[in-house]
């Protein structure tokens, strides 16, 4: 039984065309059902008084009574009898009551189907929820022609007969299907044309109103017409069904706000005192008029509608140039509706309903307004792309990020400025402007560095403070430069930059004294940092060779010292390369030096060296992780934007994201990849995300973005295997991971480890010397989004004390 129920529930949504089939695959059940249906029908007919019921009705009853034939029959009989009685009661009540009932249901769009069969008509059944009424509609229809003609007379006095005659004439014109058609138009005519009756003021007014206010949605008329037309078939199939016409009454209230109701009341009041029977007949016609009015009014906007309902409209105004409409074919409205339905699927319900009824539509609009004002939520429709598939499809250039590191004043920014200028990423005009401005403040040699040093403080002091990213393209690679500051105070920024890099360019000042001081300073620290952050490949640009007259010996000396250092730092010899160059002059950057003293160098230039980089793979299929690099106002349209590099996973426009540690969600309004708008982004790309639905206080640089389905954990303590650069003991340290920078302390030295094997050499050492690998426990005051495996850097007192892997 339960199965049966389930199926029947589904049946409501089913296409009524496969009524008998129920769309259910269970033949046994169907057979039972058929038998029961037959039995019930027989009982109904045999019983006293004899009544009939449609198959659907019976089947529904059967379903309710679990296939109990007796009960179903009784129920149906009771219902039918009631209906018959009801019909005799004053129409007014009924009309009103029924008018009230369907209102909510009406706006429902009729999932229109090409021809107006009962099945189509029934499609709205789920809304109405009143199958009996619905039935009634169908069954009543056949009476219309008669009622209309008869009912019109008492209502509008003598003139009606004329109109009726006119209608009849037109009916003839229209041919075989005319049976139903004239009924509707005939009734309105008395209303509108009879100036003496109380209706004219009401009806024309409402009509004209409706006409003027084409706001009234069009589809409503579809309902009306459909309804009317739909009645044709059933009328034939079950003739003689005594029923008032609640059908027409229903459409009346729906699209028409106030005026129609009054109009509706008026006519009814009048007929009431007269014979009940005519009344019954009369009232539907009034309603029909209302429908017609409806149908006509809104149609205006759409020519197709006009065509379909033109007859009615024109008739209302007493003009008879209407073309007969072939009702056998689907109305243009229906065609449109059909198309919309199939296109929109379920949503069409909503959309169509909005359009269907002015009232409802207005209500919806009001509701929508309320939503807007209260919530202010921005919704962006996700394209639901398969990002990885899109990524694989897209034929992008090989891309690489590299970080430029080195001691302060080694010429990192200038070298990169030169590279960008020579690659055409910066136009000559801007460059000239920088040069002029730099000379004005007496820092002419810094002009190229200004390409990257955009900050006013940076320019005034001639020092890079924060990382700058810039990009340029060669024939087969798109490079992103991350220019890191060299000053020791800004190593945290450099760490942030290095965490975005695939490989590194180490810039070394070859001039006398500077190289040596650099080696002691940040040259070493930076190199160790990038290595411990997982950078494998390093290009050493021996800069300022012009100041040492391209001294080959100097170059070799530097090469020898640096390579031995880098090898001990853990770089493989094949991943280290050296290029002598001059950033200021541009020698050996993109073009070979034409300095005669530099002819000894025949190796690759810097740009050629850069191009040897292999493509890097990123964890595309891992859960989304992105460390926020910057939070800023992207512009008027994007009040909150964040930038950063996707560490893993992928995202797309419209995605919901979670930021930690704040735990707030946000919506990705749009995505920029490398400055170009994009629908999606994958790990390894530098992105700007424009967000919505989040307050900027919840976003800080260093926070991590992930998905709510796979959130990153926030922790207050972790164990890490680190390589000590300085002495480690229980001490206070700053924990760095990319932009993330939090204070913490080493609370415990768990063990010092063997470098190669990782086995514990000494448990709980008091102190860990430089160069030793140790396992330590780090505690932090605040919860921080970190997860293994990630590379962290521990700093204390302005120096990097350790770097390693979180376990």
């Amino acid at each position, binding site marked *: 039984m339960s199965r049966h129920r389930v199926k029947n529930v589904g049946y409501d949504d089913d296409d009524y065309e496969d009524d008998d089939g129920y769309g259910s695959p269970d033949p046994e059940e169907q057979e039972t059902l058929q038998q029961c249906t037959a039995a019930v029908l027989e009982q109904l007919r045999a019983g006293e008084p004899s009544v009939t019921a449609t198959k659907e009705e019976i089947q529904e009853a059967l379903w309710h009574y679990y296939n109990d034939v007796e009960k179903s029959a009784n129920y149906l009989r009771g219902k039918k009898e009631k209906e018959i009685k009801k019909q005799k009661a004053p129409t007014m009540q009924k009309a009103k009551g029924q008018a009230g009932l369907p209102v909510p249901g009406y706006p429902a769009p009729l999932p229109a189907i090409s021809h107006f069969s009962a099945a189509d008509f029934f499609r709205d059944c789920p809304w109405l929820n009143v199958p009996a009424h619905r039935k009634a509609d169908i069954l009543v229809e056949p009476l219309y022609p008669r009622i209309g003609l008869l009912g019109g007379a008492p209502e509008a006095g003598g003139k009606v007969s004329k109109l009726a005659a006119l209608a009849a004439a037109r009916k003839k014109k229209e041919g075989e299907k005319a049976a139903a058609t004239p009924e509707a138009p005939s009734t309105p005519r008395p209303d509108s044309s009879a100036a003496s009756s109380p209706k004219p003021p009401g009806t024309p007014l409402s009509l004209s109103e409706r006409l003027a206010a084409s706001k009234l949605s069009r589809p409503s008329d579809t309902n009306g017409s459909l309804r009317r037309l739909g009645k044709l078939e059933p009328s034939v199939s079950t003739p003689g069904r005594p029923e008032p016409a609640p059908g027409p009454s229903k459409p009346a209230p729906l699209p028409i706000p106030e005026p129609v109701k009054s109009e509706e009341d008026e006519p009814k009041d009048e007929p009431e005192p007269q014979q009940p029977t005519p009344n019954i007949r009369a009232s539907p016609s009034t309603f029909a008029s209302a429908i017609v009015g409806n149908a006509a009014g809104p149609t205006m906007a759409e020519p197709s509608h006009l065509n379909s309902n033109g007859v009615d409209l024109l008739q209302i105004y007493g003009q008879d140039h209407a073309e007969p409409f072939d009702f056998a074919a689907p109305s243009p409205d229906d065609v449109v509706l059909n198309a919309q339905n199939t296109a929109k699927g379920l949503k069409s319900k909503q959309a169509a309903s909005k359009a269907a009824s002015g009232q409802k539509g207005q209500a919806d609009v009001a509701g929508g307004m309320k939503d807007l004002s209260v919530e202010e939520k921005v919704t962006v429709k996700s394209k639901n792309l398969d990002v990885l598939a899109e990524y694989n499809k897209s034929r992008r250039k090989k891309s690489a990020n590299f970080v430029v590191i080195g001691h302060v004043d080694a010429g990192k920014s200038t070298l990169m400025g030169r590279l960008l200028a020579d690659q055409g990423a910066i136009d000559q005009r801007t460059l000239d402007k920088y040069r002029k401005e730099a000379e004005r403040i007496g820092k002419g040699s810094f002009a190229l560095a200004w390409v990257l040093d955009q*900050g006013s403080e940076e320019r005034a002091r001639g020092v890079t403070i924060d990382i700058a990213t810039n990009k340029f393209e060669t024939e087969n690679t798109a490079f992103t430069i991350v220019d890191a500051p060299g000053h020791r105070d800004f190593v945290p920024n450099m760490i942030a930059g290095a965490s975005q890099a695939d490989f590194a360019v180490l810039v070394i000042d070859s001039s006398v004294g500077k190289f040596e001081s650099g080696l002691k300073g940040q040259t070493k620290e930076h190199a160790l940092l990038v290595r411990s952050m997982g950078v494998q490949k390093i290009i050493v640009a021996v800069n300022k060779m012009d100041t040492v007259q391209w001294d080959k010996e100097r170059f070799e000396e530097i090469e020898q010292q640096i390579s031995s250092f880098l090898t001990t730092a853990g770089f493989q010899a094949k991943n280290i390369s050296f290029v002598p160059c001059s950033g200021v002059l541009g020698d050996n950057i993109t073009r070979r030096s034409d300095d005669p003293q530099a002819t000894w160098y025949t190796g690759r230039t810097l740009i050629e060296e850069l191009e040897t980089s292999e493509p890097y793979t990123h964890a595309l299929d891992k859960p989304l992780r992105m460390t926020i690099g910057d939070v800023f106002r992207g512009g008027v349209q994007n009040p909150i934007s964040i930038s950063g590099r996707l560490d893993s996973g992928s995202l797309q426009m419209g995605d919901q994201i979670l930021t930690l540690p704040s735990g707030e969600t946000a919506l990705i309004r749009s995505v920029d990849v490398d400055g170009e708008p994009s629908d999606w982004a994958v790990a390894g790309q530098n992105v700007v995300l424009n967000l919505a639905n989040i307050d900027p206080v919840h976003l800080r640089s260093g926070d991590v973005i992930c998905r709510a389905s796979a959130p990153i954990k926030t922790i207050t303590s972790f164990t890490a295997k680190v390589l000590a650069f300085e002495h480690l003991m229980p001490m206070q340290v700053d924990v760095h991971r990319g932009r993330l920078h939090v204070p913490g302390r080493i609370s415990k030295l768990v063990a010092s480890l063997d470098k190669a094997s990782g086995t514990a050499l000494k*448990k709980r050492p008091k102190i860990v010397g430089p160069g030793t690998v140790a396992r330590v426990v780090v505690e932090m005051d605040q919860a921080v989004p970190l997860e293994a495996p990630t590379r962290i850097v521990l700093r204390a007192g302005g120096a990097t004390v350790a770097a390693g892997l979180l376990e």
Partner: protein
Amino acid sequence: MRLIKNKIEHDGSGTVTLCPEEPEDMWHAYNLIRPGDLLRASAIRRVTTVQDTGSTSSARVHLSLEIKVKSLDFDPHSSQLHVSGQIMNETAHTKVGQFHTLDLELNRNFTLEKKVGADGEGVGWDSIAVEMLKDAVDEGGKRRAEAVAVVMQEGLAHICFIGQFQTIMKQKVEMSVPRKRQGGGDHDKGMSKFFRVTLETLLRQMDFNTSITSGSNNEAVRPVLLASPGFVAAGFHKYIQSEASTTTPGLKRLLPSIVVVHSASGYLNSLSEVLQSPAVKTLLADTKYARETRLMDDFLDQLRKETNKATYGPREVESAVDQGAVGRGGGVLIMSNRLFRSQDVAERKRWVALVDRVRDVEGGEVRVLSSDHESGKRLEGLGGIAALLTFPVVEEELHSEDEAADAD
């Protein structure tokens, strides 16, 4: 804190009457008062009386109550000390044994009595307590040097007050400053906004009156240390200067006391670096803080040299003392005063015994660092106790103890 009356007997029992005068004295009181002590102070107690008719009336009455201390609650930010315990003296309104929480107030005397009892019962005025009392009682007010430090970095500032015995982090200013971007001027805007908020907060915390008229009373302005990596502190200094010369001339009084120093980061753990900078050293040379910081640095240096002449951790230090390594000629026992705050009497006795032994028997130096200072916090990380040794102690034998500690 003023010492009103001192009646400490030779056996260590006795009473002391004190009058706290400034907020920091509450911190001293917090260290002096131990559970089990008797504390007499004025109190306001709500007394409810029930009439014969059954109606109740309650009234607030001023009482002088003596309680046996059960627990202490100290709020360092507002410098408030609440001591709760059982009432020991009978009054018209209270019965013996009822509980009461005394809120010690500034400029109201309180009397503290410590008794020497049987095992585990009250230790009286031991050497540490006497030492603390001496620290607490401000002789001639010469230790009043205080400074305000603003440790900052881009978008982050910690405003803290450095006192004799504690560093109080008053407020943290955190703001998201946009980074530099291609063609974006947001960074400068963000920074000046950040400076503005930080200055406002600083002045509010310092109770600094910026009106010109207030300049007449020549109240000394505490030194203000601005510390940051890079140029943030310098930028902030410049900002204050420009504010002083344009909108708020009252700030001019503040300018002379501002010192800009370097720190490695904007977090509080770089305060030690701030305090060591030459500019600050001259300002705060004889503050306890500076001495403590120097001591910790010496210790850590020694530890780094791996000479085995420095050790830390309770067991290791005790063992070193047993071997006589913390004695004359450079032996220094460094302890955090947190250890003496222990609720466990036996625990406290253990540490007091150790201190007494080092000082009196071994002839070494004992330094008790305030756990509320940055140096004390560094010491906490090492287990709250450390020692500089006169000769290297080989650690091998301690290893077994370590294992034992691990097993614990």
